[in-house]
């Protein structure tokens, strides 16, 4: 049997990727790419027009996802993917806006934005790839690093308890909160699909191995070892109260869909409250006569 089967077979994941930028910069056994597969299948199965999807990332290994996806992608400053996405969504509500970023980016430097976007129930899907470490900068402790874990800035183990992100966003009012690991590719796909079809602030945490900077310091020699560890330690508990889902080192990894509540999102609430006082998008004069393109002609925004 040859190692390569070279049929004219089309992998649908490629429909959402910038193939001219593949291979990725991610390390062997890094789980970020695996989460992208689940996302790709979920997105494609919703039938949402790809040109109406925008992906926003902050800085970090997971922050590179936006750059590998073919949709309109924005790689913004560290921690600020959510507020950028907020502006994008508010000014063009037709867009499906997805924030795809890492735990350090979204919960530490960007933690304030996470809380407030959840509180506002901003209509965004936030995928938080949690590798429990600052990877891009070389393996420093993050807010999500489980207490006692070794990192380059906690050589004797971390002295801080870890943040339970699911609990935080639930408390702040998110419409939808779920957690999976990249071992759970199919469940993750299903949950992403469900979240994509819902309105409001939707948060999916995806545990993902960082063999290079987390695993090898914490008895998980490579990506595969981490995946097997996820398989062993995960327990599916849909609807689990989020305060029972903390991720402690070596403990149970509670996964599943924790929160799915109905709450009007920011724009819906605004329209409801303003009622007849709100005049959405009054006609603008021809915006670019030189180019001969009126706004209505070139897009429906």
């Amino acid at each position: 049997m040859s190692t390569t089967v070279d049929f004219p077979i089309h992998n649908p994941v490629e429909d959402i990727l910038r193939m001219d930028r593949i291979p990725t910069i991610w390390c062997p056994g890094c789980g970020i790419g695996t989460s992208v597969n689940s996302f790709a299948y979920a997105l494609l199965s919703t039938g949402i027009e790809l040109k109406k999807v925008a992906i926003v990332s902050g800085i970090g290994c997971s922050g590179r996802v936006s750059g590998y996806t073919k949709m309109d992608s924005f790689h913004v400053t560290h921690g600020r993917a959510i507020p950028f996405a907020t502006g994008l969504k508010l000014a063009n509500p037709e867009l499906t806006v997805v924030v795809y970023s890492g735990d350090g980016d979204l919960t530490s430097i960007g933690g304030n934005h996470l809380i407030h976007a959840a509180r506002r129930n901003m209509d965004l899907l936030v995928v938080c790839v949690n590798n429990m470490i600052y990877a891009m900068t070389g393996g420093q402790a993050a807010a999500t690093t489980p207490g006692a874990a070794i990192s380059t800035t906690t050589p004797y183990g971390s002295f801080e308890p870890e943040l339970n992100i699911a609990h935080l966003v639930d408390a702040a009012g998110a419409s939808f909160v779920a957690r999976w690991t990249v071992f759970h590719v199919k469940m993750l796909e299903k949950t992403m699909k469900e979240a994509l079809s819902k309105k409001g602030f939707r948060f999916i945490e995806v545990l993902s191995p960082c063999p290079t900077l987390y695993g090898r310091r914490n008895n998980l020699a490579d990506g595969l070892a981490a995946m097997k560890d996820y398989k062993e330690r995960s327990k599916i508990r849909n609807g689990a109260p989020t305060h029972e889902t903390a991720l402690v080192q070596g403990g149970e990894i509670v996964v599943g869909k924790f929160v799915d509540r109905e709450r009007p999102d920011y724009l819906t609430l605004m329209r409801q409250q303003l009622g007849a006082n709100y005049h959405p998008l009054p006609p603008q004069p021809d915006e670019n006569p030189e180019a001969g393109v009126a706004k209505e002609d070139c897009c429906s925004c």
Partner: protein
Amino acid sequence: MARGSVAVTTERCKGCGFCVEFCPTKVLALSSAFNAKGYHAPYMEDPDKCSGCNLCGMYCPDFAIYGYRFPKETGEPAEGKQQ
């Protein structure tokens, strides 16, 4: 008799072994050969068992493998059919 097969883009593979480990019917193994970057890409050690379920593709972080089903009648690869 195999119901499917896999397409491997050897040069994208980083040899993580996810596909090998999580193939439900244990079709794959990592080759002893190296690709240009020095990684061992997978090959079908037991091709008859492949169902074309593409779980290997779902796990592959580097978009290097894709499992597809044969159409029932012809035994030829079917474009655009997956999952």
